[in-house]
């Protein structure tokens, strides 16, 4: 195992092909980051900061399956 070389995922056009992207790595990215617009602009239908509430719910609900992909010092 120690001689195994690291390889990028096997996809001819990785930027266009989401198939095969590991879910846990994807969640690291779609959930924790990209917060360019401030929280109060990421609004729910009722003008509440939905995203933050949802993330907290997610953290508690799937933590067994996807243990804490969020950075301690991350945007949360």
């Amino acid at each position, binding site marked *: 195992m120690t001689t195994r070389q690291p390889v*990028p995922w096997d996809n001819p056009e990785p930027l266009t092909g989401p198939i095969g*992207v590991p879910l846990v790595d994807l969640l690291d990215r*779609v959930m924790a980051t990209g917060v360019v617009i401030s929280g109060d602009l990421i609004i*729910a239908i009722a003008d509440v900061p939905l995203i933050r509430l949802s993330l907290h719910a997610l953290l508690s609900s799937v933590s067994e399956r996807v243990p804490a*992909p969020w950075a*301690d010092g991350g945007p949360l």
Partner: protein
Amino acid sequence: MSDLVTAAPQDTTTATYVFAVSRTVDPSVLAGLPGMEEGAPVHVLPCGRLTAVVQAVTAAHFTEEAWQARLSDPAELERCARAHHAVVSAAATCGPTVPLPLATLYRGDSRVRQAMADEADRFTSVLDRIAGHVEWGVKVYAAPAPSGPEPDVAGADTAVKGAGLAYLNRKRGLQQRRHHRHEEALRAAEAVDAELREFAAASRRLRPHGQEASGRRRVQVLNAAYLVAEGSAAELTELTGLLEARTGAEIEISGPWVPYSFVGGA
């Protein structure tokens, strides 16, 4: 037909889901993408000098309660994450793209335009910063523990005159070796990160995954993202190969990603 008309009229209200923001996106790259729900197509919404990639969705399906349920359902969470990622990735084929987080919703297109106008300078500076770059994920795992039983350092004769002591010694030895391996792995992680930071335009440490997510019985000691120049995949692969050989740690790389981890802040 009449019951179709009378069925839950309040549910027809739409909201605008925003996937990403770019300068320009060729609408044809979005063709056929399902987006967050069936119905309206994923499309571009011009917003001044920016373009938002959006989809009209049924508001009632994207309320806070609906999201709570959705995010608690692993299959549905995966579907949403992949659908979001598919649109972000497609948009990014047209040029630098700022992915928005999953679940970014506005009451309508005009609200999106307003938000884009308010934040135009920040989006523009982020687009400039990430232009020509992609993100790579790098995960480092501790070198696997030697297989087979630990050597019995106490020796056979101690079994007679000090089985308890021998047991404690063995336990202590095991603990020390485990501790040592962990220290080594953390040092390897720091070494890998230091080298990759030199190579990258920017870097970010993510929280390492637990064993269940990382698979097998191995300990992840580094989960990091690096913003690197487009087209440097071969160099990165070579570098991580060298680092793997040098440190003895197991290294996994993933990418190229749209620079998700490098669009926060300003």
